[in-house]
């Protein structure tokens, strides 16, 4: 028969599904089968698709073109906007999975075409496809910093080709980080356990008592648990009683893939790595899994385990990969920024503790301060260093000299290491190695007193980022003392806030930008938008001025806005709107920078509006309109003239 009726689903659906999560993980056959059930429907702008608690949801709706907003209307008719969803997003998953009616109100904000996947077909995928249910049920709230990491790792995203290549190109010898830790077979079990605790390792090699190059066995955490504690064995017994020997080995020149294969086939997860007849280290399945490094948690743990500063260098380079996955999993920008600072903080903490080990303890307590976007926990991929050191006031000349010497060396080294970890230098030299920004508490207090008491508008602009300081490492109390000082000074003299507020109001939202953009729709006018200075900074500045005014110690912009709303300084509604607007822009910036990184370009903040979808443009425009409302608040607090 000639005609292919009822046969292949048009490529358009398959193509579409294979670009969106989690359908892109399906086998081709399953994908085609799913595509066969898909229909297309169209909903003009303004259509109410769902009414919460009423609408029966019979399809999963996947937006092919257009956009919707989701919101909730309470008993008094008050509307809370939840979300905008654009092309590639889904509608209706939760009610179908939970077997309830619609949980949100959904309305089309543009003419919208949707692919409709019948309820039963979707439920079948939820039941049969690993990872499908998690994708729709997972929430990216606090969980992400606590427990969800293992689940994240299991639920892997689209693998990039080179991740698997890694397994084939990296040699086992290249991924060993430390010298092999070993102990004589005659040592006690307790001594062995102590060594493992000291080196923070999960396994220990056992050598011949007469020849420490002769490896006769290995013990692991599991041996201590199963053969010692559970069995009630005396800790003073020789370690040889519980070791596994001889040790399974792998050549240092083997690829990681070969090592992994060996582990999987033998069930042995600790392999001694051999080079020219010598054991040079141990490699575990965990080490190899880390190469695919997509789990934030495993990276976090890995950073904490480093015994050398050099070991930290490659780890910080993995952060973009982690973030890429989080974005693809649909994490919100606010959470992603928190994750980035969590990982950066962990690197900093490890780096500075190792540096302290190297240089010896500091003569007086100190605190490493983070400023600017680091201080606000709003870093993205490209994070210039903005740091300083505050240390306790020395008790005499001699201690002062010692402190000055120590921290100057300490800062120099720390900053070099940070550069090696991939954090570029601050062009304005706002770094702890600049003597001006490496000072005792009393000097820091004087700085702030001067900025606040006799504000020079020019200078004030250059130091705004100092007002966003937070403790990064060391004695937190020193940073808190400074914060307290700042709060007290501000209570007495607010004049400097007026300068900050004026500066903030001077930056107008780039709404005209959209007008000219619309006029030059198809023209050559490819003017770009600096999302950081025009879009995000007004929010940051607004939150800073008000946080300082009301003595709020938070430094994060969203957190500041939240406290402002809680304390009643801004309305709940403005908080919600500003939160959405700010987070949306952060998201756009992250995605923009991610795609630059993937293209091998240095990430920046310049958005080409031609690259934005209509929905994104609309949402961006609405975000900018919020800035006008923030300015109105400032005008009422700080009347001009």
């Amino acid at each position, binding site marked *: *028969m*000639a*005609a*292919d*009726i*009822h046969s*292949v*689903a*048009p490529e*358009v*659906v398959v193509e579409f599904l294979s670009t969106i999560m989690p359908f892109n993980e399906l086998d081709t056959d399953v994908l085609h089968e799913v*595509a*066969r*059930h*898909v*229909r*297309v*429907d*169209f*909903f*003009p702008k303004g259509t109410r698709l769902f009414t919460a608690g009423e609408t029966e949801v019979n399809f999963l709706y996947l937006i*092919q*073109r257009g956009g919707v907003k989701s919101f909730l209307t309470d008993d008094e008719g008050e509307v809370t906007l939840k979300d905008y969803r654009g092309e590639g997003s889904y509608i209706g998953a939760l009610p179908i999975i939970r077997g309830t009616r619609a949980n949100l109100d959904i309305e089309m904000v543009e*003419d919208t*075409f949707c692919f*409709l996947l019948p309820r039963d077909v979707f439920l079948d995928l939820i039941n049969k496809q690993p990872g499908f249910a998690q994708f729709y049920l997972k929430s990216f709230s606090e969980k992400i910093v606590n427990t969800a990491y293992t689940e994240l790792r299991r639920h892997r995203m689209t693998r990039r080709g080179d991740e698997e290549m890694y397994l084939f190109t990296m040699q086992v010898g290249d991924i060993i980080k430390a010298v092999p830790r070993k102990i004589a077979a005659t040592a006690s079990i307790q001594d062995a356990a102590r060594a493992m605790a000291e080196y923070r390792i999960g396994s220990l090699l056992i050598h011949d008592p007469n020849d420490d190059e002769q490896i006769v066995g290995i013990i692991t955490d599991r041996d201590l648990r199963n053969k010692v504690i559970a069995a009630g064995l005396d800790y003073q017994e020789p370690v040889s009683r519980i070791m596994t020997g001889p040790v399974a080995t792998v050549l240092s020149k083997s690829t990681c893939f070969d090592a992994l294969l060996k582990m999987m086939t033998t069930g042995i997860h600790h392999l001694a790595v051999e080079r020219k007849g010598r054991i040079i280290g141990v490699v575990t399945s965990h080490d190899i899994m880390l190469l695919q490094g997509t789990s934030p948690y495993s990276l976090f743990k890995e950073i904490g385990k480093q015994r050398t500063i050099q070991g930290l260098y490659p780890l910080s380079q993995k952060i973009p990969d982690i973030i890429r996955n989080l974005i693809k999993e649909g994490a919100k920008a606010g959470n992603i920024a928190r994750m980035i600072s969590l990982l950066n903080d962990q690197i900093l903490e490890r780096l500075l503790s190792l540096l302290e080990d190297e240089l010896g303890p500091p003569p007086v307590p100190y605190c490493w301060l983070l400023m600017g976007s680091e201080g606000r926990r709003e870093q993205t991929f490209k994070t210039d260093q903005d740091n300083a050191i505050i240390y306790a006031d020395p008790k005499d000349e001699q201690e002062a000299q010692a402190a000055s010497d120590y921290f100057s060396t300490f800062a120099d080294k720390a900053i070099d290491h940070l550069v090696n970890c991939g954090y570029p230098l601050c062009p304005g030299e706002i770094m702890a190695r600049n003597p001006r920004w490496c000072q005792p508490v009393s000097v820091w207090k004087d700085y702030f007193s001067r900025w606040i008491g006799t504000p020079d508008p020019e200078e004030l602009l250059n130091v705004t980022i100092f007002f966003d300081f937070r403790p990064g490492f060391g004695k937190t109390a020193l940073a808190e003392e400074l914060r307290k000082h700042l709060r007290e000074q501000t209570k007495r003299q607010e004049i400097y806030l007026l300068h900050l507020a004026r500066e903030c109001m001077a930056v107008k939202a780039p709404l005209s930008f959209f007008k000219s953009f619309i006029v030059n729709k198809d023209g050559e006018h490819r003017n770009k938008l600096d999302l950081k200075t025009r879009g995000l900074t007004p929010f940051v500045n607004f939150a800073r001025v008000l946080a300082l005014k009301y003595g709020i110690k938070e430094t994060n912009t969203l957190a500041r806005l939240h406290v402002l709303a809680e304390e009643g300084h801004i309305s709940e509604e403005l908080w919600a709107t500003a939160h959405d607007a700010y987070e949306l822009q952060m998201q756009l910036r992250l995605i923009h920078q991610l795609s630059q990184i993937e293209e091998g370009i240095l990430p920046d903040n310049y958005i080409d509006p031609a690259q934005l979808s*209509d929905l994104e443009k609309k949402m961006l425009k609405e975000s900018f309109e919020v800035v006008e409302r923030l300015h109105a608040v400032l005008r009422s607090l700080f009347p001009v003239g």
Partner: protein
Amino acid sequence: MLSCALFFRWGKMVSLRDLLPGFRKVHPALAKNRELFKDFNQGRLLTEYQFVVFDTELTGLNRRKDEIISIGAVRMVNLQIELSQTFHCYVRPRDINPNAATLVHRITPEQLRAAPPMEEVLPDFLEFCGDALLVGHFVGIDMHFLGKAARKHLGGMISNPSVDTMRLARGYKEARCRDHFGGCDQSESYNLDLLSDEFNLPRFKPHDALEDALQTAYLFLFLIKKFKHGGIRTLKELYLAGRILSLMGRG
């Protein structure tokens, strides 16, 4: 080619016979088609009808000489596009010339030579259409060539009414124009590509019968739902929307 010439002459003989009432023989597919529309009810809601949105590719636009070389179609049920219910078939014409039209359609002469002739394709297509209303862009042209083929190979006309999205688009734009006094777009382009861009529809590759049929289906869906704030609900409203409905084969 000899075979082509013979085929052509034989075809002509059939159409000559068509003119003589005593010789008229109706193909079973066409008989079924007529049966389906014997009591066609025009008073139902649009959601209760099925639509088959289709497009044909031709060897050229000469109404007398040119022929259909491919048919693409997609079904709509409950005013939703059923992407899995499509029809796509090349048709072997009597005369295969690697002319300009086939180049536009990216169909090679080899593909056409391997394709079945119209007398095999048409009954399948009618089967696919069933009692659906046909929808096309500038549908008059497609209906002309389809009708010509039906008369020749099946012995009569097809009964399915047809809807023209071009005329529907014109009705929509005129109505919109009346709503926005003076502020309307004066461009009078009703080309499928340009309309799809104007209405910001998802795009398909042009010049492929199935892809064009899908594009037309999107346009149709857009128009009936955007018309008159709230959309067109009944067949009668659809007819009035621009007098775009012609009940071909029923006059």
